């Protein structure tokens, strides 16, 4: 039953491609997003379908390199490459693209992407602990609302926003429940299964259906009986986002006999504790509060990420931490200094990897992961 459900998740992308095409034919709008900071509640409130467009495949990278520097994050190159070669149907269907100034590479890439599609760029503040940053972000969310209304020729009511808030809150809770299954030892879900499940949500045209599916997975997952003394190392993956296509570190780690039991990244646990306050009077303020709290390394300082890692290491009974930085992602790369310190303070092995989407470093990654796993005391 559980296997069937996981299988269903792996077909979400394909199934929804057809559905989105049909929805487009019926006049529904599609909005492409690239980041967890994007308040997708506004997209939903506009009656449009949000789709996650972050590129996770190496295929279009070389096409992107004709325009973008080679020495740039593979996620950005892959995303841009899909756009410029028109090989991502979800990008193709998008009526509006929402970008943010989360990092230098994306910020500048979006300028060039404007030649291909209408792109709205939200200015994300660099610091999340000042009043001025907060006010700026509230204004940016309001500005986004106006742009969506304008671009999609619709009106977004507060009521529709609150409905979307409720839906996204429930989606987060359902996803968190799935991740939390893996607090058990041994973990009921492999890292690859976990990734398949969470990644599928980027492509769904029907959030309620997905939430139902998430909840069913939680209900139908059974815990394995423990075989004491034979337990595999429990690895926490942190750092840059990972998706299907860029999962090589998860795959290698599990092939080496360890479990990737949790992921603290934007495709994982990072945002799952953050719910929009439904008691607030102003939906824009409530959304701003939630989104600005996201512990991405683009914020300075980013203390909440350290708190989150600290508690995840305890809650998920972590034996070792792998911190994955995509090439040329400076914010995660530099912040690895603090993550490494924290993990070592907790007495655990820590491995910082810098990689890209190619398979050229698979052997060396394997050797390094293996060496780290040997250090795990079990």
């Amino acid at each position: 039953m559980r296997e069937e459900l996981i299988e269903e998740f792996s077909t979400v992308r394909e199934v929804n491609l057809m559905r989105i095409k049909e929805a487009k034919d019926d006049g529904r709008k599609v909005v492409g997003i690239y980041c967890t900071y994007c308040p997708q509640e506004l997209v939903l409130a506009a009656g449009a379908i949000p789709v996650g467009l972050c590129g996770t495949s190496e295929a279009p990278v070389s096409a992107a390199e004709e325009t973008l520097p080679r020495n740039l994050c593979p996620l950005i190159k892959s995303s841009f490459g899909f756009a410029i070669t028109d090989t991502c149907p979800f990008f193709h269907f998008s009526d509006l693209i929402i970008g943010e100034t989360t990092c230098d590479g994306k910020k500048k890439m979006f300028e060039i992407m404007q030649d291909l599609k209408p792109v709205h760029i939200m200015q994300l503040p660099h610091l999340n602990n000042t009043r001025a940053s907060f006010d700026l972000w509230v204004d940016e969310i309001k500005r986004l609302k106006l742009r969506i209304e304008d671009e999609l020729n619709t009106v977004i009511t507060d009521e529709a926003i609150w409905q979307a808030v409720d839906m996204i809150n429930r989606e987060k809770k359902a996803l968190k429940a799935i991740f939390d299954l893996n607090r058990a030892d041994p973990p009921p879900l492999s890292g690859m299964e976990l990734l398949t499940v969470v990644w599928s949500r980027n492509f769904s045209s029907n959030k309620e259906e997905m939430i139902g599916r998430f909840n069913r997975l939680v209900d139908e997952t059974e815990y394995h009986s423990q075989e004491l003394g034979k337990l595999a190392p429990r690895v926490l993956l942190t750092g840059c986002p990972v998706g299907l296509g860029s999962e090589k570190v998860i795959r290698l780690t599990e092939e080496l006999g360890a479990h990737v039991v949790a992921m603290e990244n934007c495709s994982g646990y990072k945002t799952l504790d953050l719910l929009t306050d439904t008691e607030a009077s102003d939906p824009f303020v409530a959304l701003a509060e939630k989104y600005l709290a996201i512990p991405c390394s683009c914020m300075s300082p980013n203390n909440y990420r350290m708190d989150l890692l600290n508690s995840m290491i305890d809650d998920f009974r972590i034996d070792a931490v792998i911190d994955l930085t995509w090439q040329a992602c400076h914010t995660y790369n530099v912040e690895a200094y603090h993550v490494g310190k924290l993990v070592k303070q907790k007495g655990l092995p820590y491995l910082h990897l810098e990689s890209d989407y190619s398979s050229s470093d698979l052997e060396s990654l394997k050797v390094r992961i293996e060496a780290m796993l040997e250090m795990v005391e079990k």
Partner: protein
Amino acid sequence: MADYREMWRSLGMDLETHDLLCEALPEAFGGVYLTQENRPQGMDFYDFVVSEIHGVRPAELIEHRKSGGKVFGTFCVYVPDEIIFAAGGIAAGLCGGSQFWVPGGEKVLPANTCPLIKASVGARLDKTCPFFLAADMFVGETTCDGKKKAWEILANEVPIHVINIPQMKRDADIDFFKGEIMNFIKVVEDFTGNKITPEALGESIKLINDKRKALQRVYSSRKSAPVPISGKDALLVTQIAFYDDPARCAQMANKLCDELEERIQQKQGVFPENAPRIMVTGTPMAIPNWKLHHIIESAGAAVVVEESCTGTRYFENLVDEQGTTIEEQVKALAERYMKTNCACFTPNPGRIDDIVRLVEEYKVDGVIDSTLQFCNLYSTESYLVKKELVDRGIPVLHIETDYSDSDYGQLQTRVEAFLEMLQK
């Protein structure tokens, strides 16, 4: 250099390692600078400053501290020096420009980080630069990912205030920056113990404007053919301006200009009148980074203008001096600083306009767009720079480099091929 060992020791410097730097510098400077022919006499001052680089100005900073003053280390042309001087402080631009400091930075930063950031962090952590140790407070900003995150690491080492630079230039963003300047005033007042009055701020606005005007005058002289001063020398003037006393900076630059203008009258230049005229644009070249200029000028072309932070971005645009209240003055400051066009802004069409305008003003034959390694901002924007210049039929070469000499030969070849193309 005179004997400053006692002073260096008092700053807690690592003297043995620092000696290695002191030994290498005269030869490096001599090879790049003193071999040039027909240099303006006004460059004597700048040669002297370099020969005493870790002595004479640090000694002044230490004197200032002894009399109760504070020294602020800054790293960006968006930091309003006016505020610091208005509070009786001294601002010194500290960006590291030498490979010497890079390994020190790599102890805490990824190797794949911009060399300017690594060198700046390394100079402080390794205790091999008196400027970095003489600063009581560092002023950081959020201009790029690397710097933004590096401040978090340096914060364990020295008091640091980070100015949040907006990433767009709409009216609301200029207001936002006004707010950041107001915060900065408070921070500087608290740290120095001195209240910033409108009178003091008015004076410091004028002080820094005068410095800008003097540097503008140096650059204006470079519009002439033959060019009366080499690109290397002009770059050195700008580099030193970042940490010199602003009044002296203006005075010495103006003195140099008297001579340069005399040279223009007499059609006297440092390159033949028909030498290719090159603009260098892109990332800053902090002292002692003279690599690209040396390659270009050794190949017989003249660098006539730098559209960079160690160039026009530093001194173009003056602050309006009419304001009589802090509110008005801060508004004028915010407006002036937000006119500076760095790739950290999105979009940044002003920089492309600047490049096109400067190509005309300085009668530029070719543009070399130079990016320090791992600077995602300038390397991505280079696409837009190239597109505009190609559309206009202006030759452009994009290079990516660092502080090491490992790519020297390769750069030389590329620059020479580019210059050859210009002469056809």
